[in-house]
């Protein structure tokens, strides 16, 4: 006879892509590269979700250009989204503040559950906001679930506003740090890149690696306890960020 048909109760883990779809994303295939990167990352995210019996990974996406709107409005199980991802289209301005306000409304309880795992918010942009970013950010950070969220930012190309993206992430734990330069340094090396700073993706390969990292390693960290090294001192952040992947120096330059 089979083991009784029971399983561990699951907490939701909300993963939200916040994607810049302004006109500049049309240039040099950036929009296509982002769509591809997200598509390619979904099977890996589904694997991580399956490996963690305690989490229900639910994905949504916001796109922002003239204004922000839900691209995937319903929290969708990642394994289902694999077959349903509709490509983002680029046009218009960069209403990033509006996007953060939209996310803030989703993180309010209700509709947010009483109990959950830390949400993961990934902001991806190639430019500077054209609306009231500060107001949007303040609305977002008033929400307790946004304060608990792992907030990551990926700068696409070299024209992204790194200061703004750092504001979204919050202050970097080590003092004096601003946006990190893109690079091919490996984790553990001096001045290693950190997920607590905007990640600069200067080419499609690096973008895909960062999206993959956010959707697998970070989802893993936020959803299940990970093996710890060193002294188990209280973490500075409420979710330990995994090492960034060793990147390959790009061949395709935008």
């Amino acid at each position, binding site marked *: 006879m089979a083991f009784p048909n029971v399983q*561990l109760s699951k907490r939701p883990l909300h993963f939200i892509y916040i994607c810049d779809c302004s006109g500049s994303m049309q240039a040099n295939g950036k929009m296509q590269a982002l769509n591809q990167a997200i598509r390619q990352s979904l099977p890996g995210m589904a694997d991580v979700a399956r490996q963690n019996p305690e989490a229900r990974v639910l994905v949504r996406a916001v796109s922002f250009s003239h204004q922000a709107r839900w691209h995937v409005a319903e929290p969708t199980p990642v394994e289902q989204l694999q077959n349903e991802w509709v490509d983002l289209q680029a046009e218009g301005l960069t209403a990033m503040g509006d996007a953060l306000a939209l996310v803030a409304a989703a993180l309010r309880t209700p509709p947010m559950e009483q*109990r959950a795992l830390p949400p993961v918010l990934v902001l991806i942009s190639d430019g500077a906001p054209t609306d009231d970013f500060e107001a949007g950010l303040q609305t977002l950070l008033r929400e307790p679930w946004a304060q608990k969220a792992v907030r990551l930012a990926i700068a696409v190309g070299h024209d992204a506003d790194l200061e703004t993206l750092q504001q979204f992430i919050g202050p970097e734990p080590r003092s004096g740090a601003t946006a990190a330069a893109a690079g091919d340094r490996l984790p553990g090396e001096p001045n290693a890149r950190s997920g607590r700073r905007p990640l600069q993706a200067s080419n499609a390969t690096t973008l895909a690696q960062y999206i*993959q990292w956010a959707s697998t390693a970070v989802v893993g960290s936020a959803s299940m306890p990970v*093996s*710890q090294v*060193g002294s*188990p001192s209280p973490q500075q952040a409420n979710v330990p960020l995994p090492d960034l992947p060793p990147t390959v120096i790009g061949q395709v330059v935008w």
Partner: protein
Amino acid sequence: MTALLPLGTTLQLEGISGPLRLIRLLGGGGQGQVYEAEYGKERVALKWYFPGCISKDRGLDQRLRECIRATSPNPSFLWPIALLSPSVETLQQHSIPLGTFGYMMGLRPADFVGAHEHVGGHLQISLRHVLRACFFLAEAFHELHLKGLCYKDVSLGNLFLQPQTGRILICDNDNVDIDGRDLGSAVGTPGFMAPEVLLGQARPGTNSDLFSLAVLLFRLLTRHDPLKGSLELQIRCLDEPARRRLYGEDPVFIFDLLDERNRPDPIEHAAALLTWPIYPAQLQGLFQQTLGVGMREPGRRVYTGQWKTALARTLDQRRLCPACGQEVFTQADQSSLCWACGQMLPSTPRFKTVRGDVAAAADNELHRHHFDSLVSECIDHPLASIEAHPLKASVLGLKNLSSETWTAELENGESSSVHPGQRCNLNLLVRLRTSQGSIDLIR
């Protein structure tokens, strides 16, 4: 995922005599990547570390070298076979990060699946095979600890199961260390880590392994976390500080004998409430000890040998509910209710040996430890197994799996030879005489 090593190429590596051909990338994690490779005519696995992991874990190569020298304590470990680093020639030819290394190990067969598949409810597996997996796990840690080694970082993530047999494989043996030496950086995984280790009051060793082992056994047997009860429901955001409280600062076993603050919630923690009563009190008691008094007093945690004994006895008690067919583990000579259908269970015939008491249910087995008090429990080489008749499942027979002929004494006073590979119908049986000792059938 981008492979760190050049796939499809043949590498000359220091540490083995011949070249290694990289076939494919099997996976990767925070520490490094695992490849399938060909060495001579054999398929092997190769783990290669990220530079960041090597720089953080200074004792890694020494630990691995000593592990390889110590050899595997037990076949359940996918033990490192050889420490490998790129030869000068390989470094010149390929862009392998300088200073990196890896090790070779056996390739995990495809029918071994991650234990998370079972805990996540994705696997069809019998209770017998889950209990066998638990026994093999306790046995593996028993052999490891007897060698003076400790594992340090056991969790669901490094355990694999073969659902058809309950066989296990324990991977990621690179944190294994000599107990008490602490030549390593791993402290463990929250939820599996002993509270004193999570709080930074002690470094991991055999005592903390005993805690992690109990957690892992509980999770396999119940598909639930032993510390997730009502105290977990009070946590809104389950992040690292919350986990530290739940697993370190105020850890309470959900079935603690005295402290009732963390009892399972009937809806949220239904799995625990359904599965816990399946197991006999003597097995439950070991959890209540390790996760009760042993929570704060590492010296009072149940030893691996005690787990082996209790799990082997639970397997011996296994019988099938005549009403619903489900596996039950209450004592064969006692009437009780089936945990699955609630029907009264009749008493079941059982085999008594000098040291064993095994319920006469299909697939149950007799082993050497049932006859010889000097041998430790081992379920690898059964001497006899109980089999249902292929045409009439209600007729059971005891199959002689030994290499010697046994003598069956029957109810009518006659006796009969049972040759190796033959079965003896239980309906007429009184006793079997074997060179190991007699097997009495108690009805």
